[in-house]
């Protein structure tokens, strides 16, 4: 299905957020996720189903002021 991942259109075969992260090759990277603007904790990724057109944000630690 088509998802918007970090602002880019991606074709991914996945039914939940955890599967989507695996399909996107994030592996064991330390990331936090949001689905359609709402935070999804890591422990809830398996139970969070995704739909075509969903917006997924995947973020990690970065420099900040």
């Amino acid at each position, binding site marked *: 299905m088509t998802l918007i991942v*970090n*602002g880019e259109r991606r074709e991914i075969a996945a039914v939940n957020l955890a599967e989507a992260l695996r399909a*996107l*090759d*994030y*592996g064991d*990277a*330390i*990331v*936090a*996720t*949001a689905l359609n*603007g*709402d*935070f999804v*904790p*890591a422990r809830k990724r398996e139970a969070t189903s995704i739909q075509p057109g969903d917006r997924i*944000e*995947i*973020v*990690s*630690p*970065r*420099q*900040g*002021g």
Partner: protein
Amino acid sequence: MDFYGFSPRSRLLLGTSQYPSPAVLASAVRASDCEIVTVSLRREAARLREGQDFWRLIRELGVRVLPNTAGCHSVKEAVTTAEMAREIFATPWIKLEVIGEADTLQPDVFGLVEAARILSADGFEVFPYTTEDLVVAERLLEAGCKVLMPWGAPIGSGKGLNNLFGLRAMRAHFPEVPLIVDAGIGLPSHAAAAMELGYDAVLLNTAVAKAGDPAAMARAMRQGVEAGRAAFLAGPMPARDMAAPSTPVLGKAHLS
């Protein structure tokens, strides 16, 4: 000085952005002798994994992190960012920024208070980036904040303390609240001036990161903060408009 139960030895907080390289960042953090650095969250590309390397570097430095919500212009964005930061950085601390104006990066104080209330109720320990407005400060304290971070000048401007009167009034009005001047510091003299007013600490980033020698500037900032704090504790003399001779007048020889 108590930041939600943590009493740092150093009164300098340092940002981690805009350094020429990770190695320079590391040397600046060490030279500053700071114990708290600010960090952020940004989109991670699976193939690049920039964030993983950065996070490893920060952990090796052995400092506490204060994650920010930089760039957030709405309460929703700021709250969601804070929630993501708490999970990744495993800390309830959040430097709460809700930006209201693009040119000055001035806080949207209305959104700030609302976000602070939501986050405090959810167990966050909020460090709000605010202005020197006393009424906003009261609202932030009512919302659950136990630290306030008024700006010295717009972020990245290096202009120092734009409103000395306002900052002095804030210090006098909230003698027991930990106050950190955040943003606008360009020189060690600015940092010293903030500490001379009785502020508890100073948070800065660009002045060090964009210096010709960031580690040397980090050291200078540390010394500025220490000098300002020592001066505050020593009790500065009152300023006056007219001269007052320091050498005794009595006993001067009559030579005319």
